[in-house]
């Protein structure tokens, strides 16, 4: 370090201070570069093979530029301001490392620009008399600048291929002429006011020539849609006018001019309209016009106080992070502490420039220095304010930090001017420093004050609103984290894997070991979000609920990654599930097999299902279909209940079966002709319920009366949604329009899950069990922790009524009851229900099964339902 930035005993205070500060800045750049080298290895949890090296080229360039400039300034300018070069070195270093981190290609370009800019400053310090040429030929410079900007109207290009054509292509490099125009405007104004500085208050005549030039420049910029530069122009002009002229009307006129300009822009220029409405309503269109600003805010929020560390966050998610939004990118990776340093350094730069202006004896130099102070200060305010939503977004750069060659070069030229100006006062021995100009100080204080305000707003995002912003649905960082740390597995009740995470770190994806369960388990996808168990159990699968041990804390603080996921166990039994999926095959429909006592769901099938691996390719076709494979038909699909209501009605009226041995004596439709799902052999009570004779059901309902029927439906839970860790359909409406249709079960829409819960009451002594699909999760100590049910059980019938009904419906051989029903949806689509359960005489665990098919297929439904029920009942009897 001492060789690069020498500090000698005999050196002046200025030289010593500058070298010392540059040493710290150099160490800072080295520390950032080392972080950047190691960070991929830390993210991927690997050794040295993932180290990143390319950015050391940028470090080399940085060292080359600042060691040379340090020596040159020592030789040529012994009385310069010692702070300027180190401040610029630090800002450039932070910016350069950030650019390399985001896009190494652009980092390479920026390094070339940095070396070029350093070369220009080197020459500028060697020939300080350039300053007088600036003053002498100010009109020529300005006209030259205007011509260059004018050229972009004809030859303008945009490096990204589209957008405003503000660049001129010279060989392979793009140059933005509006950048030097800002500095040339400052030079022109300083020169002009020096010549005619005798401005009596309230006398406006002398400023008219400047007005003409400024308006010309503005018109040129607005016609090219370079609004950021236009605003900077206007602000620079007004600030300089105020600090030179000292008229208070300038202060009052400024907001007025901006308001008028803003209104005109809002009404007539599209991009101004978009920017202003985004500014006024930042959350109105999070995926469209306010996407950038929201991503920027989320970026600052996810950095928090200390930041993720360079290379450890995801600032690439913020659009154009490398130039317009580099402030937000720094906020994410270096945190609020990093932002404070950036804002602080820019404020110090403004302060030093104003100090140079105050100390200068030459009026031109003084105006020039204060103009440069405003240029740095205002441009920073504009883009930082745009990044945090405090000001409308304008595409200008953050001086010395943002990617952009023209901007870097011009900022460095401004630096050279400041260094040279400060050298001037010591030359004449008898000249005294001119008194300070309070107007310049006030302008600078306003600028710095605004920067402080902007930092405070940033810290609101990084601290106060941190959690709210990170939790926003537009934040895809969780999906990136899932690619680096595996989520927990989802396993069935016996520990067989349904879904797991596979792949290399950085490429980890969810894989369905048992794909047929995909509508139930759901998906977790960076684009489409989360559904099913993946959504409801995410805090467990992601490990967020786990107690934070040292490993989790290390992952969070060092790797910026979430803890390892916890496995989640479901109540499903993959053995029976497989049978269900095979038998259901290509039919559209759903199956629910449930333990009637505990409410545990052993099987839940919904066909058709989707394939997790091809989800993104199939998405377009899925979203066209209203009831596509993404829907979990078992919980979200609703179908008219039809004659499946019959056993519940009869259980409610169980006494009539003993009073009237022959059903047709009170159900008149039976004598006319029964309408049944399957053909009954006889017309006794058991047969008409089992075979789903819908007109008999309607007669029984009419015999019961509307209110008692609705009361029964209420008790069966059809008017409320079941609560389990899955998305469920909205419950049925209580209103009844056509009483007969209602009694025929055509108006009551229920989901297979709801029907299975209701059916459980028949097999479970009249009690509705609370459903359960998730048993629990495996904590870090590999112990299973049971999660509570979300609902509690409730009574639908007395145990006596339920027992008498199932005994009545019982098929002697199997100790089971069953009901088949066929009906139609409102659109005329056929629906087949099959519902069966163990009877009261069954000694083992009670089970019920519900099958819903979107077809008229009573045999298939019955075959499927009984196969599953038998398997479940055999399972427990064997144990």
């Amino acid at each position: 370090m001492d060789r690069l930035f020498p500090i000698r005993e005999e050196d002046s205070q200025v030289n010593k201070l500058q070298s010392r500060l540059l040493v710290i800045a150099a160490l800072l750049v080295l520390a950032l570069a080392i972080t950047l080298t190691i960070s991929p290895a830390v993210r991927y949890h690997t050794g040295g093979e993932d180290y990143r090296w390319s950015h050391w080229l940028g470090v080399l360039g940085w060292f080359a530029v600042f060691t040379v400039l340090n020596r040159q300034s020592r030789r040529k300018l012994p009385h310069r301001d010692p702070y300027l070069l180190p401040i610029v070195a630090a800002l450039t270093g932070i910016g350069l490392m950030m650019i390399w981190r985001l896009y190494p290609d652009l980092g390479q370009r920026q390094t070339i620009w940095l070396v070029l800019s350093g070369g220009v400053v080197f020459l500028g310090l060697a020939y300080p008399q350039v300053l007088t040429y600036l003053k002498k030929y100010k009109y020529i410079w300005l006209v030259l600048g205007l011509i260059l900007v004018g050229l972009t109207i004809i030859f303008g290009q945009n490096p990204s291929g589209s957008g405003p054509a503000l660049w001129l292509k010279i060989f392979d490099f793009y140059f933005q002429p509006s950048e030097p125009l800002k500095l040339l405007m400052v030079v022109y104004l300083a020169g002009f006011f020096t010549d005619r500085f005798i401005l009596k208050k309230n006398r406006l005549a002398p400023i008219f020539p400047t007005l003409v030039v400024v308006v010309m420049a503005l018109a040129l910029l607005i016609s090219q849609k370079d609004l950021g530069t236009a605003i900077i122009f206007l602000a620079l002009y007004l600030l300089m006018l105020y600090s030179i002229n000292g008229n208070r009307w300038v202060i009052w006129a400024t907001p007025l001019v901006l308001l008028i300009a803003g209104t005109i822009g809002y009404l007539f220029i599209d991009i101004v309209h978009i920017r202003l409405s985004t500014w006024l309503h930042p959350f109105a269109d999070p995926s469209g016009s306010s996407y950038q600003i929201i991503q920027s805010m989320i970026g600052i929020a996810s950095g928090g106080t200390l930041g993720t560390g360079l290379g450890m966050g995801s600032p690439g998610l913020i659009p154009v992070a490398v130039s317009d939004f580099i402030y937000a990118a720094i906020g994410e990776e270096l945190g609020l502490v990093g932002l404070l340093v950036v804002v602080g350094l820019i404020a110090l730069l403004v302060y030093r420039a104003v100090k140079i202006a105050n100390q200068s004896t030459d009026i031109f130099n003084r105006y020039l220095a204060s103009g440069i102070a405003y240029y740095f200060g205002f441009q920073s305010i504009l883009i930082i304010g745009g990044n945090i939503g405090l000001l409308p977004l304008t595409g200008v750069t953050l001086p010395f930090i943002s990617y952009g060659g023209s901007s870097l070069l011009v900022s460095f030229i401004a630096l050279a001017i400041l260094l040279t100006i400060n050298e001037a006062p010591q030359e004449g021995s008898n000249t005294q420093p001119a008194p300070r100009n309070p107007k310049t100080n006030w302008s600078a204080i306003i600028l710095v004050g605004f920067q402080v305000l902007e930092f405070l707003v940033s810290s609101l995002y990084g601290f106060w609103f941190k959690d709210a912003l990170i939790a926003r649905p537009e934040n895809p960082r969780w999906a990136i984290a899932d690619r680096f740390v595996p989520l927990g597995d989802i396993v069935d009740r016996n520990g067989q894997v349904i879904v797991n995470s596979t792949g290399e770190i950085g490429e980890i994806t969810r894989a369905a070991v048992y794909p047929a369960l995909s509508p139930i388990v759901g998906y977790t996808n960076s684009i489409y979000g989360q559904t099913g168990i993946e959504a409801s159990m995410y805090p467990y699968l992601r490990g967020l609920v786990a107690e934070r041990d040292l490993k989790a804390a290390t992952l969070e603080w060092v790797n910026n990654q979430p803890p390892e996921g916890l496995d989640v166990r479901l109540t499903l039994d993959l053995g029976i599930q497989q049978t269900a999926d095979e038998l259901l095959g290509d039919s559209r429909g759903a199956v629910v097999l449930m333990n009637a006592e505990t409410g545990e769901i052993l099987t839940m099938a919904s066909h058709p299902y989707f394939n997790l691996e091809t989800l993104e390719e199939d998405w377009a076709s899925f979203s066209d279909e209203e009831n596509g494979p993404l829907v979990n038909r078992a919980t979200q699909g609703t179908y008219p209940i039809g004659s499946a209501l019959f056993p519940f009605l009869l259980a409610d009226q169980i006494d009539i079966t003993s009073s009237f041995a022959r059903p047709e004596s009170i159900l008149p439709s039976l004598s006319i002709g029964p309408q049944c799902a399957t053909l009954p052999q006889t017309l006794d009570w058991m047969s008409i319920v089992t075979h789903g004779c819908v007109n008999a059901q309607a007669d029984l309902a009419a015999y019961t009366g509307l209110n008692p029927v609705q009361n029964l439906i209420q008790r069966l839970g059809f008017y409320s949604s079941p609560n389990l860790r899955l998305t469920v359909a909205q419950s049925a409406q209580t209103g009844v329009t056509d009483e007969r249709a209602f009694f025929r079960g055509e108006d009551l829409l229920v989901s297979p899950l709801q029907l299975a819960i209701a059916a459980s009451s028949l097999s479970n002594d009249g009690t509705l069990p609370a459903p359960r699909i998730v048993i629990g999760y495996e904590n870090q100590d590999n112990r299973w922790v049971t999660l509570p049910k979300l609902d509690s059980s409730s009574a639908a019938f007395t145990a006596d009524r339920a027992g008498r009904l199932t005994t009545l419906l019982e098929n002697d051989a199997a100790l089971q009851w069953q009901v088949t029903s066929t009906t139609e949806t409102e659109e005329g689509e056929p629906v087949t229900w099959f519902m069966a359960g163990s009877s009261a005489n069954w000694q083992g665990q009670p089970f019920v099964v519900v099958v819903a098919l979107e077809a008229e297929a009573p045999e298939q439904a019955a075959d499927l339902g009984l196969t599953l029920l038998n398997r479940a009942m055999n399972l427990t009897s064997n144990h």
Partner: protein
Amino acid sequence: MNALLLFIIRLITLLLLYLFIGWIAYTIFMDLRKTNQPESKVSVTPITLIQANDDLGESRQFVAQEVLIGRDPANPFYLEDGTVSVRHLKLTFRNQHWWAEDLESTNGSYLNGDQILSPVILTDGDELRLGQVVLTVRIN
């Protein structure tokens, strides 16, 4: 291993960031204190300058220890006249007297008709001429 190294370097980065900005703030603070210290409070007898050339006849009073007169509007007393240099004349209060000192102006300064070549003491009623501008001095 990498993770630990990275964490330590992040902390070092943080320290360096604040060392850098802290050092700048400290030296600037010390610098400001040094420049402010020697200024001891001296009671200054007010001086009034009356501009006679102008139709309006501007008159201003000063109590500062040092008053600069010139064409530069940043001067405490500035004169819009082509014959006045940017920084023309300096008035200082030393040893209970107001002294006038010409700052090598182009057209020279005159006290009661005599050119000021070295610092001279002003008294009440003196007439100063800067280029073509005439000022009357009132002390007290």
